[in-house]
């Protein structure tokens, strides 16, 4: 794969088309130049300080505290002054010895992988579509996707709830009236876990695809037209050009986007939470995000669960992280 990184596609000229001042193409990335040792000593640390301060205050300290609490018994009473008791690994053993928790973990991993895969598939397909159509169609698609991405989640989730409502949902109405499936008139979409996850998947994919489309589309734009034309002259079909030329060239983009999708889909919270409140069986539909939230009155348990979840995420993404570190070396 390192060969891919040195292709022109991977080295993205950062200049927007309207900046003619840019001279030579970018130097290969991932190999920061050695500066004089004097500069290298203090400068970078000073540059990191401003970012580190808010992250340490707003995220670092709470995270460390969450981790420490996970070895204590800490709930509401402790928050109001009762002393916290150290319990060692008890929170962890309690969680990990509960088969229900393992069920939640398994469901979450499955949900995450399916959603990330679907999002990537649909996103790539739409990005390719976008690169093949005229300006009007492209702008229409772009604006449509932008709207889905940018509207407040609170509002879109309410609307999705209405669309899949058993009694007055538009989905049921469409199935029953124009399509004649009268059995669907009062269909409950979210009462069976399988069907619940189907609805959740539709919503999650709907919300995540725009990010993928825009990123991958931009990546495809960077594939030199000359390569594509040369391949076309050599008799490669459109599919072959995409599969063997364009996609490998945007592989680094795809990898990063896929990684983000895995992280985000494993943490999915809002969509599941709202659908549960809409009338789904809660216990059977918990994923890691909502399960941790349901523990939030016992901070120590929630903390332990969060740590467990971090380990799972690391396991799922270990491949990528290792690769990244190798390239950084």
């Amino acid at each position, binding site marked *: 794969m390192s060969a891919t990184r040195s292709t022109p596609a991977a080295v993205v000229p950062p200049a927007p088309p309207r900046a003619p001042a840019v001279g030579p193409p970018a130097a290969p990335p991932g190999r920061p130049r050695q500066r004089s040792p004097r500069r290298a000593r203090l*400068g970078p640390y000073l540059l990191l300080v401003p970012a580190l301060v808010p992250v340490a205050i707003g995220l670092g300290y709470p995270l460390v505290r969450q981790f420490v609490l996970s070895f204590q018994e800490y709930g509401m009473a402790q*928050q109001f002054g009762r002393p916290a008791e150290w319990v060692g690994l008890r929170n962890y053993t309690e969680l990990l010895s509960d088969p229900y928790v393992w069920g939640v973990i398994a469901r979450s991993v499955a949900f995450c992988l399916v959603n990330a895969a679907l999002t990537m598939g649909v996103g790539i397909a739409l990005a390719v579509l976008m690169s093949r159509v005229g300006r009007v169609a492209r702008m229409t698609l772009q604006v449509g996707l932008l709207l889905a991405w940018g509207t407040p989640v609170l509002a879109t989730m309410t609307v999705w709830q209405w669309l899949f409502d058993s009694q007055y949902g538009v989905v049921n109405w469409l199935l029953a009236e124009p399509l004649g499936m009268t059995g669907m008139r009062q269909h409950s979409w979210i009462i069976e876990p399988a069907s619940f996850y189907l609805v959740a998947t539709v919503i999650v994919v709907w919300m995540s695809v725009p990010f993928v489309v825009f990123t991958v589309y931009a990546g495809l734009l960077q594939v030199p037209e000359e390569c594509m034309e040369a391949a076309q002259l050599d008799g490669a079909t459109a599919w072959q050009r995409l599969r063997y030329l364009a996609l490998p060239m945007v592989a680094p983009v795809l990898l990063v986007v896929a990684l983000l999708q895995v992280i985000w889909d494993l943490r999915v919270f809002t969509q599941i939470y709202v659908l549960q409140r809409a009338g789904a069986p809660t216990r059977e539909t918990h994923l890691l995000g909502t399960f941790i939230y349901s523990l939030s009155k016992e901070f120590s348990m929630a903390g332990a669960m969060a740590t467990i979840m971090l380990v799972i995420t690391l396991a799922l993404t270990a491949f990528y992280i290792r690769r990244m570190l190798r390239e950084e070396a």
Partner: protein
Amino acid sequence: MKRVRTSGLAAVGVGLLLAVAACSGGSETGGDSGDAEVRLWLAGTDTPQELRDYLVETFEEQNEGATLVIEEQDWSGLVPRLQTALASADQTPDLVEIGNTQSPTFTYAGAFSDITDMVEDLGGDQLLEGFVEAGTVDDSVYAVPYYSGARAVFYRKDLFQAAGVQVPTTLAEFREAALKLQAAAPGGKPNFSGFWFPGQDWYNGIAWIYSHGGDLAVQDGDTWVGALSSPESQKGLAEVQELFADATRAPRDADSAEPWVPFNNGEAAMFSAPTWARWSIDLPECNKGVAADDESEQAKVLLAEQQACNEEKTGVFPLPGEQAGTPATVFAGGSNIAIPAKSGNQELARNLLEIIFSEEYQTMLAENGLIPGNSSYADALGDDVYAQAARDAALGAKLTPAAEKWAEVEGARILEDFFQQIAGGADLAEASAEADQLIADTLN
């Protein structure tokens, strides 16, 4: 010196953040007791503006130099807000309204001040009983009842007539009426419900458990045990399951929210809700099409006509009990009020609490359709049908168990899941045993 300049950027950045932090410090609402600003958190919109004005005026009159600020908090975000703010000496309000089922959790956690010595003054035995219990730990009282709102059954008079159904006077008659309405399905709507009873609606469902003498959980020594499997609860649940099966077409994946929507659409003959639901009944045949923001005199007249028309066509009765003439034991919604332990204005907060429990204020609560915390002023509710239904229902109403961790049972939505299983035709004994286990695991 080039190096310095580059890292100067970083210094600018840190400076910016600090500057921003510094300039915002001043915009704080003061937690300092010296400035004598008392903050009262009211939950939701139940307390009308007129009552808020009265509190501010009276309090500032009686406590010279002190000011009262009322901040309204949404019900949906109340618990996380209390969880954080009550633990902060700086940010804590001085008096808070809190949902009655959330009350035990905070009381046990030590979030409130002991006000046992005030109870006699505030109303003593006349205070709504279950509510006081929800704010009591080891015989010390930390939270007292603010108001209660009981549930009553609304029905369409024309549909009752069409199906030949009378207003029921016992729980058994109610069941028959619901079944008969469902079977007759007057009005010709395909998804008609005799009684709107969605699958997760445990707020209404527990009335059957309570009325047959059952309970959700009971205390056995130091531990709590789920009580859904008790013979009394089972009797009630069997009736609930029958209603789910044969008296309603409401979806299983819906809860007690907005039951008037199917009612207004002509798809339900009865629904049970807090009595304020009368303002949400909007039958198409009565609707005058007044725009939502129209505040002209003419619009007001039309709206009054519309309301009269709706109330003409709608009846209301308290869910009847086992014996004729007695109301069922329904779930009492409502709230408690307490002084946060971290508040720096304990004395002033107590003064405010006294104003709230004064005859004037309690009467004002009642006049606005709320059962006041001190039940001796409930007569001020008036004697229209809604007030009567509310008072009758509240007479025997009952709360959820006053267990320290009850809020966690609600947070985990154990009862929503359980009633949904019942609605789905699950085996009663099995589902109850399972739910009992979950409740016990959560409470202990």
